[in-house]
Structures are given as structure tokens and as C-alpha cells.
């Protein structure tokens, strides 16, 4: 967590993303949806990322289908190795590790999706309002965004979580959302500013459309790619930071989640006592879920910016060099 939660493809000091020239919003969801599906299928990173995400969503919705044990029941023999009855063994407290891993998906995913959606929503409201209202509004909102952007996030999260004590799902979502929206808000403001004098907005103004209509129907749809990127970046950030907070014991120690599993594993010295799976399994799951968000995000970047796509044919490289 040395750096701010920047998206995986734009480094801390990367130039502001130049979005593809936005035209008037295309209406009708069907062509857009089929375009996205085609893009996902044609890009390997997107295919892998989406497949992983779908699996995790299914696990979160129906954990009981494959994990029959109660994840928090401390009823089994302690510290067992993997076996038919306990696929991944049991913890030093006598819980089934497989059940904990599967049931733990739900909380992590709720936090990821919740933080992704809410922080994107806040960023849209603040970023677009700042750009569109201008003047004092812009000054104030931009200042708020910039201040939050430079305060180091993880230490701030730690301080807040310490005072809250035993943060549950809802508290984690709120805290991660309140601290995480600023980066996107800044990008959206820049995007909205660059749109301000476009002809299609002028046309809408001349038609006499109301401000609210212009913002909702004309401006926001042109930002779709930024919004998707924001959702994915913030979801990844929520998975990593949420789990980290739980790992250091600032979450609810009784909750079922991967970060909490790691907390108990560390507390019981799982690595020193040979219970490796207790530490490995939740970490691998965090990695896979995080990677699914990161891969989809990177793939979207490649789709939006053809220069970044992997080069397939050698001959074209030759010509370029």
C-alpha cells in the first residue's frame, strides 16, 4: 500500500487519461451490450477476468451448494490436514477451512461491489457538479477532492477503523467509500470540463433542455468507460484494503471473510505450526478476486486505447521499427 490506489494501468503520475472523442450519447442498450460482449470475448484478459468474477459471484450467492459445513462452527478435530471430510483441513480452532473460504466470499464481494458503486456515484456527483457549476462550487469541491487525494489513505483508514472498533460489513463499506472516491472525482471533473464547450451540449442548451437533463442524458453517458474503470479500481481497492484492515484485527473478528481468516491464522501462528493452508487459501482467493477486477480493468484500457494492445503479427513490428 505504498502508493495511492491508482488504477493498475495509470501510475501515480501518469498523464490524465484522454478519453476517446465522445460523441452524443448513443441510446438503446442492446447494441452497447453486444459490443461489450464481443469485446470481452476477443480479449483474453477480459475473458479470464470475467470468468473469475462470475465464479465468485456464484459462490457468494450460493455458498451452501458446495460447502456443507457451518463456517464458524468450532466442532471438528483441530488442525487436521486435508482429507475427504475436510477438503482443506481444519483450523487450530476446529473450523472447516474449505467452508470458511467459500462462505467468506460473500462479505468480500459485498464490500467490493458496494464500495465500487458508491464511490463511483459520489465521484460522479462531485466531479460533474464541480465542472458544470463552475465558479465557487468548482473551487470548493475541487479543493475537497484534492485534500482527500493527498492524505495517505491506508493510515487514514487505520485511524478511523481504530476509533470505530470491530468494523462490520456496513462500516467497512462506508469507511472505504468515504476515503476512496477522490481519484475518480478528479478524472471525471477533467472529462466533464473538456466536454463543456462541445457542439452537442451547445445544441442541447439551444434546444432549451434543463440542466439536470443535460447532465444525466448528455454528459454522463459519454463517461461510461471512465465509470467502468472507476468501479473496477475502487472494487479492487476495497478488496485489498478491506482485507488488510481485517488482517490487522480492525474488522469484526467474528465475521466470515478472507481477511478475518488471515487474522485468526496469524494469531494462532499458522505458519509456525505447519497449518499452511489456513494462510495460503484466503490469500490466493483475495489474489484471484483482485486479479479479476484488475484484468477486466486492464482489458478495458486496451480496448479503449489500441496502442496498448499486444502486438500479434511480427511483420507489423518490423514495419514500425
Amino acid at each position, binding site marked *: 500500500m*505504498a502508493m495511492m490506489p491508482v488504477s493498475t494501468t*495509470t*501510475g501515480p503520475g501518469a498523464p490524465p487519461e484522454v478519453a476517446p472523442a465522445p460523441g452524443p450519447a448513443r441510446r438503446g442498450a442492446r447494441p452497447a451490450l453486444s459490443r461489450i460482449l464481443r469485446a470481452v470475448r476477443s480479449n483474453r484478459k477480459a475473458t479470464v477476468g470475467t470468468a473469475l468474477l462470475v465464479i465468485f459471484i456464484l459462490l457468494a450467492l450460493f455458498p451452501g451448494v458446495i460447502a456443507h459445513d457451518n463456517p464458524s462452527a468450532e466442532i471438528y478435530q483441530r488442525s487436521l490436514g486435508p482429507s475427504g471430510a475436510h477438503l482443506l483441513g481444519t483450523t487450530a480452532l476446529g473450523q472447516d477451512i474449505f467452508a470458511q473460504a467459500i462462505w467468506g466470499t460473500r462479505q468480500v464481494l459485498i464490500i467490493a461491489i458496494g464500495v465500487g458503486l458508491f464511490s463511483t456515484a459520489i465521484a460522479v456527483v462531485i466531479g460533474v457538479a464541480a465542472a458544470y457549476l463552475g465558479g465557487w462550487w468548482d473551487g470548493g469541491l475541487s479543493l475537497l477532492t484534492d485534500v482527500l487525494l493527498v492524505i495517505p489513505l491506508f493510515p487514514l483508514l487505520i485511524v478511523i477503523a481504530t476509533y470505530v472498533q470491530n468494523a462490520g460489513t456496513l462500516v467497512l463499506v462506508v469507511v472505504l467509500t468515504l476515503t476512496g472516491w477522490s481519484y475518480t472525482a478528479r478524472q471525471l471533473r477533467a472529462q466533464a470540463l473538456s466536454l463543456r464547450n462541445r457542439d452537442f451540449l451547445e445544441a442541447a442548451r439551444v434546444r432549451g433542455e434543463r440542466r439536470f437533463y443535460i447532465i444525466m442524458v448528455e454528459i454522463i453517458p459519454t463517461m461510461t468507460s471512465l465509470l467502468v474503470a472507476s468501479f473496477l479500481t475502487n472494487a479492487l481497492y476495497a478488496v485489498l484494503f478491506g482485507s488488510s484492515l481485517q488482517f490487522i484485527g480492525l474488522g469484526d473478528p467474528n465475521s466470515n471473510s478472507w481477511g478475518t481468516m488471515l487474522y485468526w491464522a496469524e494469531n494462532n501462528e499458522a505458519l509456525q505450526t505447519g497449518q499452511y493452508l489456513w494462510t495460503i487459501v484466503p490469500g490466493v482467493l483475495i489474489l484471484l478476486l483482485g486479479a479479476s477486477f484488475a484484468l477486466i480493468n486492464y482489458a478495458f484500457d486496451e480496448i479503449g486505447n489500441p*496502442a*496498448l494492445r499486444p502486438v500479434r503479427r511480427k511483420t507489423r513490428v518490423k514495419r514500425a521499427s
Partner: protein
Amino acid sequence: MRFILRRLGFFILTLWAAVTLNFFLPRLMPGNPALAMLAKFRGPVNPSALKALEVAFGVKTHQSLISQYVGYLGDIATGKFGTSLYFYPESVGRVILDAIPWTLGLVGVTTILAFLLGTGVGIVAAWRRGGAMDSILPPTFVITSAIPYFWIGLMLILIFSEKLTWFPSSNGYDVTLIPSATGSFVGNVLWHAILPAAALLITTIGTWVLTMRNTMVTTLAEDYVRMARAKGLPGRRIMFDYAARNAILPNLTGFAMSLGFVVGGAILVEYVFNYPGVGYMLLQAVNNEDYPLMQALFLLITVAVLVAILMADIATAVFDPRTRSRG
């Protein structure tokens, strides 16, 4: 110059925001968590220190919120951070001063290494577009960016400390040794630093590679690069003097910024390895409800970041003539 003054003003404002957060957060929480903390320390801590804490956290005080706040701002401005509760009777300032060199050494050196290595790999990957390195590395680093730092640390401990027993798994040096300036002690410190440094390097290098590669890919398509090729310049010269030199700006400003994150950056890695730096102290303070130490560390980390961002701004202004006129 005006640009830098404006940035300075902004940083003072941000610092004030951080101090204000420190002041109001414990007061906003239901049932003032400081109360519980104070009750716990009633025994071992002497009454006058406790009194100062009660004032600092707004417990049992008849002052108005505003005069408490002004008093708090005054204390911070004059560097009065109080006494650490967990490391009682040491002062907060002392505890922090002891921790800083460890973090600067470990995280500072690792950050510089990660920057140099990552930027170099990024340049070569972009130059050999479509080569083996270019097709394997970006997806790999997209995935490593999704690994929690602390878990990499845990895995390194598992492999290199528990299984192979090559490196120690905790502390900054062998606790049986007495710190001294001898070669054997320095060697011991380095030996203890290898695993945490590796954990940091693995998780941070990806950003440098990806940023450098992606910017460099864009620069390679510029006309001046084509011009250089047309002139028949040697490839190495085009790669470094034409393309990389123009593509490195985002990485350079990123580097200046990441130097600020050095201070607070490796909190979890230090925690996993019990490495006695700033991040480890922060979590010690958190786990032991040592709020004065926690608040001071949070401020310290914020200040470090602010100074670094200011340096990054100045560096950009110096290196990129286009930004100068904007003022």
C-alpha cells in the same frame, strides 16, 4: 514561483485538515473511544500525564469544544505530541525518532531499487514490442498488483524462513546482539532486511514497469522517433535519448511522490516481519490503544507525503517546460 506558493498554501490547508481529523474523529465516535483507553491506563500512567490526555481527547473537561480545538492546534504547532502510553514513560517524539531510520533504510532503498529496475524493464519491454518480455510481463504485473502486500510477506516467511530457514522471519536485527557500528552487526541488519525488502519489491515494481511501458509505447509512435530512425541513428540511442527520455516524466513524478509514501508505505510489511519501523509502531499504537502515538504517526506520514508531492510538482516544473507557463 506563484505556482509553488499556491501549492504551499494548499499543503498547509491539507495539513490543517489532517490535524482537524485527528482532533474530531475520536469525539465524533459514539461513546468517545478515548474514555475506554484512559480507563485502561489509569493504573500505570502518572496522574499529570493522564490529565494532559484527558484534555487532549476532550474527556471530563469543562472547556468548550472551540477552546479545546485551539489548544490542540497550539500543541501540534509547537510539537507537543505528549507521552506514549504503550512505551510509557517515553515521549511520542522519542518513539518515532527511534523508528524512522528503520523505515527509511528498508523502504527507502527498496523504493529506489524498484523504481530503477521497473523503469528499466518497462523501457526494454516497450522497445521490443511484442517480444517475449512484452507479452509476459504486463499481465503478470496486472496480477501482482492485486496481491495484498502482507500476504506476499507471509508466503516469503513460509518458503524462505520456515521451510528453507535461509532468512529470519522477524525483527530488524538479532535481539541477542547489541547495536553497534561493527561489520557483523550491519551484516545482521541487512540479512534481516532481505525478506521484507523482497516483499516490497515484488508488490511495487509492477506499477513502474506498466507506467513506463505504456507511456513509452505512446512516445515510440511520435514523429521525432521516426525522424531519429530516418536519420539512421543507432537503436540504443533512439531508445534512451529519444523515446525513454520523453516517456520518463510520469515515472519521475511518480517516483518523487512515492518517496513520500516511504514513511508510511510499508505498514503491513513491517507488521508481518515485526520490523521496528514507523508502520510497525503505528500498528503497535493501534493494537494497544496508544492514541497519542497513533495520532502523531498519522501526522508524520501525512507531512512526508505532502513534502514529497511538493517536490514532485517542482520536479515536473523543472523537467517539463510545457507546465511552466501554466503557473
